[in-house]
């Protein structure tokens, strides 16, 4: 019974950390647009937090560029459990249009274990919200 309550509270207050690892900042702006009044993410309790200590969902965009990969690894380790990773945009899923570039270690799941993928270039803010909420239900929905 206690586990159900805690999982319910985790589902209802997802604190997000947005990490951009070499994206064309269109997905980053759509993540910020998800905060704007039209697609308000705070309806689901979501808040964009400044540092990994306070967050439990890592929102990752972009192809993992050479310099940004170990930064993402460190951020992933600094986030306290239980945590989730959502990869946004076709760059984070399959390196998208930059597939043959020399300057990338691979899509998001080559660096950190990813729980939810949101395709699109850029995915619309509704799609981002839908992806985050489905990830929440899958992880702690019960």
């Amino acid at each position, binding site marked *: 019974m206690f586990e159900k309550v805690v999982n319910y509270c985790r589902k209802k207050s997802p604190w997000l*950390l*947005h*990490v*951009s*690892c*070499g*994206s*064309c*900042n*269109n*997905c*980053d*702006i*759509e993540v*910020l*647009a998800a*905060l*704007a*009044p*039209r697609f308000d993410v705070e309806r689901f309790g979501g808040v*964009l937090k*400044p540092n990994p200590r306070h967050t439990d969902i890592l929102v990752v965009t*972009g*192809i993992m*560029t*050479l*310099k*940004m990969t170990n*930064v993402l690894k460190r*951020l992933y380790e600094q986030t306290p459990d239980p945590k989730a990773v959502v990869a946004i945009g076709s760059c984070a899923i399959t390196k*998208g*249009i*930059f597939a*043959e*570039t*020399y*300057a*990338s270690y691979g899509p998001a799941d080559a660096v950190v274990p990813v729980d939810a993928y949101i395709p699109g*270039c*850029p995915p*619309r803010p509704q799609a981002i919200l839908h992806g985050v909420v489905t990830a929440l239900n899958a992880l702690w929905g019960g």
Partner: protein
Amino acid sequence: MDMVVQFGPQHLALAEPERFKVHTEGEKVVDVEVAVGYNHRGIEKLAERKTFEQDILLVERICGICSMSHPVAFTQAVEDIAGVDIPERANYLRMIIAELERIHSHLLWAGIAAEIIGIETLFMYIWKDREYVLDQLEIITGNRNHYAWNTIGGCRKDITEKHIPPLLTALEVVERRTEYYIDAFLRNRTIRARLVGTGILPREDARKLCTVGPTARASGYAVDVRKDDPHLAYDKVDFAEIVLGEGDNMARAKVRLLEILESVKIIRQATKAIKGLPEGDIAVPVAEIPPGESVGRYEAPRGEVFHYVKSNGTFYPERVKVRAPTYSNIQAVPTMLMGDTLADVPISLASIDPCFCCTDR
């Protein structure tokens, strides 16, 4: 106590990864180390392996929020090499979408600047009004940002009669709201306390460091590609080039907000001019591209976008060199931050409207 505070690759104030090591004595900034390259995707190498048509889509994905500037600069360079003159209507179509993008990009910046100095409400208001512009862009081009509007020799889609009335009503709303935001930025006492007098870039440094765009114009260095090297249909519409002298954060905010009003004026004149031109005549077929080289320049919301294209007669470009406006503006950041307190660093960094994905390519 002097300390090194790192505005690291991941920071709430910067949407993209870039590292700034700020050496401070107490709260006063003494030296700034800038480290770029966290967003480097090797686009110039990719551009050489794709054909000219594929390159337009690749070049569009250099930067998400100025996704009209790179394709226009690139296609203009290739059209110069091919010696092709694109139809009059195509010039107007490109200009309308370019100015719509300037409006939504400047609104985006104003929201993020308000968020950084602490007024979250202004961020929410401004980004709510930005959605109207994005709706119009989506109705006309099909996507909120990556429009795929250009091809070599003209445009791929047309603005028909039924697009224009909703566009003009949206512009009225945006114009009225922008005047309200200009009033808010200028009269709110706490905003003035944070923006006036911080991050000063004198005119001499702006010229010596060859800064471009609103950052240069706010310091009195009049650089505007739309006036210096008129491309598209900018020489057929009249608009004011806004040049202020103070060079602090408030001046940069003023330049951008006033430019939104100018863009609204340009779009109104362009939609009037389009009515006269025949519909459908929007592109000229380009058979093959002779060997040669040329330079495409375009006034993006952040400054001058510069494309140097060299072709060797085949369908693959020999060399594509891209220089985004933030590449030269970012070198002016250390001179701006000298002497300010630690609290001014994020807002001064954001005041050049940095687009690190453009800088690193």
